[in-house]
């Protein structure tokens, strides 16, 4: 299969490309950018005039809800949502039921995902058995089965000795440990940021220090053990500053935030909007602005969808009883573009946060359009306006705080390994 994508504006952050050029694909790989290869006879020509052609997006956190939570979403529905959102590679956290703590489960998931022939799925193995925070998993076995890194997802890990051992063991094999910093005790029972809005609404709160205390423990242990750490879903201004300083001291850490948190704050809870029941909680405007600044200056490496589809019934409850999470796969691109437009950041820099840099964090050969690389490509119309509504989403989860919002940027084509897996 040979594909000629013509007249598109190619934006390839890895190679610093932002120019109207043609892209040539053959045998699942990028053959050439710009110059037509000799004797190239395409099977298909895609006209990408007025479209952006970029590497397929890399999402660092998408819950596909399999195994165990098929009533919320299935691999089929969510993989379709991924490619409809331009995502060609995604990492899925281990908080399935049962958790991804055994090689068999990981192999099954990889196999199921592969058979759907859509986005590439990279499972994160459970850091502790059953995510119980007590005993570490067989990381080497899990790695052989296909786990790309190890994570505790949102499950508590309060025992610092276990945390240190998990980091040491992971460092032994050179695996990255993914952690979302949150002190179990300070966050106990909380559902909203400990600020003005939670005070007004009378919601049990999570103070910012729940993040920073856990973060300082992680940073100190990272230095102690030499483990490579990826910090997930930062939410506080103080947390961003701590990461900035740790990076300037040369610590091997990376970090991401959820695209929702770039745009929203505690104010969006309104009158108990359960779509704003998220982990971590939406914090103050000051925190949101600090996240934006961190994203811009590179303290925060990547944006992710933090996709967590929830069925309607689980949101039709009083705020604190509602299940947390939001659908996100199809919103990652428009929310990134919205951030870029609002803060006047060039697309080249903005798309880096959802292509090349997350690929580096995962350690995978993706997120770039370098000749010889797999042809995972996203073609989108940056001008196209659309309204976020339940029937505009392929994901089984329709829950998002952005319902009703008009956004810009819609995917036209998604290619994985040189095959068109989505076209609108």
């Amino acid at each position, binding site marked *: 299969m040979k594909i000629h994508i013509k007249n598109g504006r190619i934006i390839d952050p890895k190679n610093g490309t932002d120019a109207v050029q043609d892209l040539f694909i053959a045998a699942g790989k990028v053959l050439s950018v710009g110059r037509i290869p000799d004797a190239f006879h395409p099977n298909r020509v895609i006209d990408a005039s007025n479209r952006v052609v970029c590497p397929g997006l890399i999402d660092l956190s998408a819950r596909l809800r399999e195994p165990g939570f098929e009533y919320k979403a299935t691999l089929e529905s969510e993989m379709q949502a991924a490619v409809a959102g331009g995502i060609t590679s995604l990492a899925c956290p281990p908080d399935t039921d049962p958790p991804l703590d055994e090689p068999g489960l990981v192999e099954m998931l990889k196999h199921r995902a592969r058979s759907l022939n859509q986005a590439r799925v990279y499972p994160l193995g459970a850091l502790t058995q059953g995510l119980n925070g007590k005993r570490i998993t067989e990381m080497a076995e899990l790695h052989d089965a296909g786990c790309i890194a190890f994570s505790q997802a949102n499950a508590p890990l309060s025992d610092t000795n276990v945390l240190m051992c998990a980091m040491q063991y992971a460092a032994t094999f050179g695996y990255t440990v993914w952690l979302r910093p949150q002190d179990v005790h300070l966050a106990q029972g909380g559902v909203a940021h400990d600020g003005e809005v939670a*005070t*007004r609404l009378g919601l049990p709160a999570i103070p910012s220090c729940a993040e920073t205390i856990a973060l300082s423990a992680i940073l100190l242990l990272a230095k102690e053990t030499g483990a490579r750490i990826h910090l997930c879903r930062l939410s506080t201004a103080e947390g961003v500053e701590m990461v900035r300083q740790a990076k300037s001291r040369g610590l091997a850490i990376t970090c991401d935030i959820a695209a929702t948190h770039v745009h929203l704050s505690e104010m969006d809870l309104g*009158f108990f909007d359960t779509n704003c029941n998220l982990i971590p909680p939406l914090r103050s405007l000051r925190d949101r602005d600090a996240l934006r600044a961190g994203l811009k200056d590179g303290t925060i490496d990547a944006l992710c969808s933090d996709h967590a589809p929830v069925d309607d019934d689980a949101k039709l*409850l*009083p*705020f604190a009883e509602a299940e947390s999470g939001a659908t996100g796969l199809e919103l990652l691109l428009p929310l990134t573009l919205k951030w870029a437009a609002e803060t006047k950041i060039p697309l080249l820099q903005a798309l880096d946060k959802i292509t090349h840099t997350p690929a580096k964090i995962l350690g995978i050969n993706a997120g770039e359009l370098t000749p010889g690389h797999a042809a995972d490509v996203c073609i989108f119309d940056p001008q196209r306006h659309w309204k976020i509504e339940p029937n505009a989403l392929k994901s089984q989860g329709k829950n998002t705080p952005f319902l009703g919002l008009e956004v810009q940027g819609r995917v036209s084509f998604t290619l994985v390994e040189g095959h068109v897996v989505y076209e609108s």
Partner: protein
Amino acid sequence: MHSNPQLSKNGELQHLLTIEGLPATLLTQILDTAQSFIGVTEREVKKLPLLRGKAIFNLFFEPSTRTRTTFEIAAKRLSADVINLNISTSSQSKGETLLDTIDNLEAMHADMFIVRHAQSGAAHLIAQHVAPNVHVINAGDGRHEHPTQALLDMFTIRHYKREFANLRVAIVGDILHSRVARSQIHALTTLGVPELRVIAPKTLLPAGVENLGVHVYHDMQRGLKDVDVVMMLRLQSERMQGPLLPSAQEFFKYYGLTAEKLAAARPDAIVMHPGPMNRGVEIDSSVADGPRSVILPQVTFGIAVRMAVMSILAGN
């Protein structure tokens, strides 16, 4: 961006969910209407036909005696049919969701729901769900609000102090967990009380409470100095189980209202409490039963205030 769910497009009260966001004119209208009902409650025949034929469901997902009873009396004095449901002991324990319960009761042609629930926001959830002609009154949701309690407190203050514009008011105790305190703060600031204080240890104050328009005190002597109204809050006994407070004894010593501490207030200061009281924990019996206590009149006024709220909602 978020419209106030309790007001209709032309500003009429559809539900009473919170005090926050209600204009002073509306609060005053409720108090004035309640005033007109006071005479009724003192008559030989204590009934008005305003809600005749209306079905009012008292939906209590949390136990309550005073609030449920005064709502029931208020509804009956307006000639409504009242159905009391204590849901903590029925369908919720069988796994039915809150909105399923509401759907079923709506199918029985309810006109009004009076809801108490342990979760903040429960009354909002119900109000967003019911048909447009059904009204919801929040009778206490989690830590959020208890608007009719605050209204009867305002009625009581107005009864004894005539106006709000020159008052110094202190709210004392567990502000953090108190829905009553939140409603009181909004009501008092909306009605123009120039100086509102809260007095509590730091463990019982929510983050940024001063943004609600109150002055924070940690010391009773200073906090009560020259106040006209002392509003005590109930301290739930389970607060002693966790790390918030060391003991009921120490709380009483530093934050319990005694005659000695009350001496710092103005000589004509009134003492209020939403009940039920923990004597010897937040309030001393000599004060609770003393000449400045208006705790029992609060209960009596509660009936007229709840009649006012129900009749206004039914008329809109």
